[in-house]
């Protein structure tokens, strides 16, 4: 046998081996997933330190979201254009110490629900009697989200209702009802928004409001004059809704200042969140955009500066649908999680976990996407996600919901979707050019992700093992200790699906500590206040948020898991007013209610 012949045989074997590589990788990966999924509650508790049980019916919650029905011109692609609106936000609206739940509905005439926590494990919908249920009337559009913030510092959380339609601000009348104050506040007559976040951008002690438009505000989705309402590009669209920044003037009025402070964008915003990413004392603003790059606005207290490309987060365009912050390494620095689309063999955008690069900080901070390295990259058609310590082991985990449109299980719209999405702007931008859905699914019936942080740089999906088996079209996720047990429960709002309450059971060995902050010089909601907890030689920072994830808001209270046998050194609270408060050796297993010192 000649040398050339031997070489050819070797090459042939190597060639076959390379072709087989993807199959081998797939098989090994599938075996690992199957191994992790086999578990019952007891095993989950032993292995992962917690399990989740869906209890909405037992808790008296029977809410099912209704999707909007828009202009008949959109009928062929109605499932796609009417695919958002389900949202959830947590608020203790009556200050009774129990977290309540507000959820939006999105069909004309449908009612939103405010589930008052009765403290006995059940909830009662009181939205009607409180005056914030019937907010989806014909001619006013429908709800797509809600965020709570005490704009007048009277101690009660007020409600901003995000809509495709007339946005609404409701004043909380000391937990006894709500008064609509939208006109007095100076809100615009119509927006088509999916995201809003409360933040005190200028540190004046009053919360301001950012609202991110999705469809252009010129469009009434129930009465279209044109079908050219779609994005002009799947990845570079700049024909979305405008952005608003409402500066709180302190007399119940707001002034729209977005252009004045440097926010000029017509990208298709789907999620926004604010946190002090550079330690300046001012909240920076992260906006995840559909059909394009994310935007990051550095805030110097007076103006915003868009630094997405400079920092690395605004370079590769994807389909951003979530913005959540978490100190995942317990190093006192936030990473940002942005969800995108991944569909096997068609579109693998991958979600983004933007982690600050080593050695960068302040204005020079740079981010790198480490979602793949940490195992939180592929989550299907991902929507809402939140960081939270689900098993109280001292590291932040990540709960992700997903699934876009679940209709006929056996027929997919992906072929037609990809066909048009790749086309020229004159084609993609006109709804008439999109093939009819005809009952097909688009990334439907997807399994969720509950990524457990092992503290060593890896997240492992344990959703199936800990009891998260639903396949609804998930949109919003909110985390809250619903029953004041020192654990984070999970609330999930599903598009055209039920509101799910996952009650969390955590191994008692893992301890916890909570902080409930009340601002005095700072805005009373304490939005922007930051707690750095030092224990067992590590630290974790968390910040009171005015909205995060996708169309969601977590509980106001900050929850820290501590793991076993914690030795807490101190908690350092930095209030937005600039005051720094140190609490030495705070006791674990307690909710510490702390008012900003005078």
């Amino acid at each position, binding site marked *: 046998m000649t040398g050339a012949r031997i070489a050819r045989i070797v090459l042939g074997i190597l060639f076959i081996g390379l072709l087989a590589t993807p199959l081998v990788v797939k098989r090994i990966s599938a075996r690992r997933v199957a191994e992790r999924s086999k578990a019952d509650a007891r095993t989950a508790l032993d292995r992962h330190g917690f399990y989740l049980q869906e209890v909405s019916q037992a808790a008296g919650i029977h809410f099912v979201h209704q999707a909007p029905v828009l202009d008949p011109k959109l009928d062929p692609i109605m499932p796609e254009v009417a695919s958002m609106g389900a949202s959830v936000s947590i608020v203790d609206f009556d200050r009774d110490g129990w977290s309540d739940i507000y959820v939006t509905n999105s069909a004309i005439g449908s009612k939103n629900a405010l589930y008052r926590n009765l403290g006995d494990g059940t909830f009662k919908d009181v939205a009607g009697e409180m005056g914030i249920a019937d907010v989806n009337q014909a001619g006013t559009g429908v709800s797509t989200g809600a965020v709570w913030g005490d704009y007048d510092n009277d101690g009660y959380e007020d409600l901003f209702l995000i809509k495709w339609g007339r946005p609404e601000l409701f004043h909380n009348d000391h937990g006894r009802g709500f008064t609509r104050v939208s006109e007095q506040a100076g809100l615009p007559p119509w927006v088509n928004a999916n995201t809003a976040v409360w933040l005190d951008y200028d540190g004046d002690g009053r919360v301001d409001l950012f609202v991110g438009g999705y469809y252009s505000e010129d469009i009434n989705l129930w009465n279209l004059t044109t079908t050219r309402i779609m994005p002009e590009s799947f*990845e570079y669209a700049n024909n979305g809704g405008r952005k608003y920044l409402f500066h709180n003037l302190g007399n119940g009025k707001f002034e729209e200042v977005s252009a004045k402070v440097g926010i000029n964008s017509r990208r298709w915003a789907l999620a926004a969140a604010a946190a002090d990413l550079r330690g300046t004392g001012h909240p920076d603003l992260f906006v995840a955009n559909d059909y394009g790059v994310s935007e990051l606005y550095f805030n110097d207290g007076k103006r915003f500066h868009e630094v997405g490309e400079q920092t690395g987060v605004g370079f590769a365009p994807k389909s951003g649908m979530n913005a959540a912050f978490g100190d995942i390494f317990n190093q006192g620095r936030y990473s940002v999680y942005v969800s995108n689309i991944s569909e096997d063999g068609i579109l693998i955008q991958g979600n983004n976990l933007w982690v600050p690069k080593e050695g960068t900080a302040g204005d020079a901070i740079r981010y790198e996407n480490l979602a793949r390295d940490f195992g939180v990259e592929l989550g299907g058609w991902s929507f809402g996600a939140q960081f939270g310590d689900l098993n109280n082991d001292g590291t932040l985990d990540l709960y992700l919901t997903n699934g876009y449109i679940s209709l006929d299980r056996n027929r997919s719209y992906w072929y037609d979707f990809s066909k048009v999405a790749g086309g020229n702007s004159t084609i993609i931008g006109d709804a008439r050019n999109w093939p009819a859905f005809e009952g097909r699914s688009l990334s439907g019936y997807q399994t969720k992700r509950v990524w457990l942080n092992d503290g060593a740089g890896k997240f492992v999906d344990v959703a199936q093992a800990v009891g998260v088996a639903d396949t609804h079209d998930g949109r919003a996720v909110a985390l809250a200790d619903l029953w004041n047990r020192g654990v984070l429960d999970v609330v999930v709002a599903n598009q055209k699906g039920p509101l799910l309450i996952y009650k969390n059971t955590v191994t008692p060995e893992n301890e916890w500590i909570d902080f409930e902050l009340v601002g005095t010089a700072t805005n009373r909601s304490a939005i922007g206040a930051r707690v750095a907890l030092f224990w067992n030689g590590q630290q974790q920072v968390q910040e009171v948020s005015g909205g995060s994830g996708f169309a969601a808001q977590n509980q106001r209270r900050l929850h820290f898991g501590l793991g076993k046998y914690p030795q807490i050194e101190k908690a350092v609270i930095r209030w937005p007013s600039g005051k720094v408060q140190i609490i030495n050796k705070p006791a674990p297993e307690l909710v510490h209610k702390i008012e900003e010192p005078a």
Partner: protein
Amino acid sequence: MTQQMSTPVAPPPADMSWWKQLISLDNRYLAPMFITCILLAGHLSFGILESYQKTLLAIATSIATELLLGRIFFHKWLHPASAYITGISVGILVRSPAFWPYSLCSAISIMSKYVLRVRGRHLWNPSNFGISAMLFLAPETVASLSIQWGNYLLPMVVIWVLGSVIIWRLRRFHITGIYVASFIVFAFLRSWITGSPWQSEIAPITGPMYQLFIFFMITDPKTTVRSKTGQCVVVFLVALVEMMMRLHQIVYAPFYALFIVGPAAMLMDTWMDARRASTAPVAAR
């Protein structure tokens, strides 16, 4: 496996103008320059690459594999132009959050030229083979470019014009022309059959994936049949098979259509060549 894999370069005629020299069959750098221009224009204007590293990895793997295998099997260092085109095509067309698919796809693409050969000719366009294999075998990790260039008209027109001029100078415009014409006719036919808007059926060819497909894959001199008529027939068949696949909602129909039709045509061409060669001496006798 003795046939040289790169075309020898003849010196250009002295009276040829500089631009004709630039855009001529004799310029082996023409295609690499063109595809590099596409990449740079796409990236600088729209940031089409998620990471330089992945594209560079694809190119480096492709060239390294070519050099290594060329050295082993032909005992010489082959010109890297062809491998560069393969690597850059992989770098643009493969979309994956992982690094390994870029490397693997490039390696498979180049190796296919050395393994899958009949009578000294390789059967598949290398990047077509590699990308089709990855899409088929690793769909959970790999997708293909389908949504780039900002979906705007101007960059698309510029590339189409530039590409057409170059392809025309390389005397392969008939392949591109027949394919595009066939695609458009079949798009209207599909629209009539499925009831989908005709714009949605035309839409794919306005995207950048098709620009690479029609300028680089279907026109590859090494994997097209020899006669001009044959080339026209083959590319028409590619469009036909693609249409059939599209009716079955196969997203990557063009890649798979070329994957099937291309080698079949090459085999037939090779067989006919052999037949001609064996009958010619007899006739002469």
